[in-house]
């Protein structure tokens, strides 16, 4: 069980100046190493004494991981770029305002100054049963404490659950999936580029991880292609406290609209499943249709097909339906 204390367990702190140096440390410590980005998720884990890594590798000293630069009409963002740097970047806010809008809704201004884009997409779920250190499925056990008749599961999943019903809490993740971004991951074996849609993985595939990152991996860059530059975007986040909270549900859409007709669209929601859910059936249904209330309502109805609400999160069904509908109807250039 989690014991909140002022002092964290002791660990070896490494502050490498290059990615190669960081990979060397990760290779040496294997699964006992912890990659530290902005620290907003990590410090909680350490202070709760649930995670006790032997080595913490702070990527804050690697300057190349903070660069944001244009590439082939798109943008490459270093994973250590802070959310504030993302929000204020002119090319991003001009061409890919979906991401800057999502980043601006994450947490509070103070956290945006310290939190990184890589950390935001790589953060772990906020399920309190899991974070309290109990032996649930995600922690290697054989039960989901949130999926019992008396569980507190108001914030949990209505889609995509498989034994574990925790949700992905990231605000920038659905925006990146909607923008068809690519995640650049390096380890000692080389570099691999993973589509954002595949970067986030659900419990059906691996119940103990939320992303494709394995021990020894570092997310170095996030590449946004030019495909959706300047499209109509929509981002909305529903949360209990407007000032600072995780999403009960959020939605991100990117649409190409010509003369009021949807030529192409990507709709993604988070906070409703263990990974950002793309609603491909809804996208297919509205493609080629006029942007109006009827089309929007159709998308919303399709999005909630197959939902499995838990004891206390039935409200998320109508929330999701309305968010998806609005993301189709109100997408703006």
């Amino acid at each position: 069980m989690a014991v909140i204390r002022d002092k964290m367990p002791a660990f070896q702190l490494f502050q490498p100046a290059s990615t190669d140096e960081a990979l060397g440390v990760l290779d040496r410590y294997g699964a006992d190493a912890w990659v530290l980005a902005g620290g907003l998720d990590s410090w909680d884990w350490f202070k709760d004494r649930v995670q006790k890594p032997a080595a913490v590798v702070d990527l804050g000293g690697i300057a190349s991981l903070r660069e944001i630069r244009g590439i082939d009409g798109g943008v490459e963002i270093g994973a250590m770029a802070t959310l504030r740097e993302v929000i204020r970047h002119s090319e991003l806010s001009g061409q890919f305002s979906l991401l800057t809008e999502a980043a601006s809704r994450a947490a509070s201004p103070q956290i945006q100054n310290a939190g990184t884009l890589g950390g935001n997409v790589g953060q772990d779920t906020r399920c309190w049963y899991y974070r309290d250190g109990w032996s649930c499925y995600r922690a290697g056990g054989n039960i989901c404490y949130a999926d019992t008749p008396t569980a507190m599961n108001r914030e949990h999943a209505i889609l995509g659950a498989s034994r574990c019903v925790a949700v992905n809490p990231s605000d920038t993740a659905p925006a990146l999936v909607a923008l068809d971004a690519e995640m650049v991951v390096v380890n000692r074996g080389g570099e691999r580029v993973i589509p954002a849609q595949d970067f986030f993985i659900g419990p059906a595939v691996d119940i103990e991880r939320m992303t494709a990152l394995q021990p020894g991996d570092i997310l170095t860059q996030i590449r946004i292609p030019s495909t959706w530059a300047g499209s109509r975007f929509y981002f909305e986040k529903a949360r209990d406290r407007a000032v600072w909270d995780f999403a009960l549900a959020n939605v991100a859409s990117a649409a190409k609209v010509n003369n009021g007709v949807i030529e192409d669209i990507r709709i993604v929601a988070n906070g409703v499943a263990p990974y950002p859910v793309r609603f491909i059936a809804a996208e297919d249904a509205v493609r080629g249709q006029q942007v109006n209330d009827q089309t929007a309502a159709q998308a919303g109805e399709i999005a909630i097909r197959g939902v499995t609400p838990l004891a206390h999160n039935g409200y998320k069904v109508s929330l999701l339906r309305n968010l998806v509908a609005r993301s189709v109807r109100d997408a703006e250039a």
Partner: protein
Amino acid sequence: MELFQWGTNPWGQEILIRVSWDLLYLSFWAGVAFIVFHLIYAAVWLPKLARANGGGDAAEGGAGAAGIPDKIERHTLAARLFHWIMAVAMLVLLVTGFFPIVGIQFPWVTIHWIAGVVLTISIIYHIVHATFFLDFWSIWILPADMAEAAARVKRQLGQDGGDVQKHAKYPLDHKLYHTAVMLAGFAVIATGLVMMFRIENALVARNAYLLAEETWGLMYTLHGLGAVLFIMLTLTHIYFSLRPDKIWLTKAMIFGSVSRDKYLSHHDPKRWDVTTK
């Protein structure tokens, strides 16, 4: 190496979660070690034994061979269908159960429980079929098998074991294997059916409160124990089915019959009477 995985419940109590996956590797390497041992045994020891016994088993004719057809049905079509359906289900269960643990990840849960249901149905069918339509006792270890086994062990050790009887329909090693598979199979099936209540599926509604937490841990542990045992059992079974000296048995499981020569070489017509068929 650990035998079990333990965790902590919300009340701070230590609870049994499942077997340690160290046992997965232990079972795999035990299977490999057995195969290597048997390969050496078959290459070095068996030829010596055959020479000492004047060339080993031979097809014997004589009065006992009268009335024996050229082809003897060893497995009915129904029995073969059961075997292969069970084999496919078992392989799917092993792949879906263990590949994610060793790092090959994919959405496995749905495939796993469906294969488990197929295995369960096939086993139920087999029990009914074998009990009422086949020679029920032919696969069970009987006193006569023990006498035969004792004689064979003596012969292996170079002692005079007297006349070693040929097998009935199934030799003792097949019966031992069947018993091991039956025990491990009942363990994984019984616990697997209960574990269906912990996952989303089309047959039963989830109910995490069906059992107490400790009992759930026991279910997962028994399921894991049976499953890791199946790694070794499956490896060795596949090995024997591919051995050149056993391939006639594999062919019998595909085509159904064995030749008269093979029958007379390996089986005692008095213990497995095929003339009445």
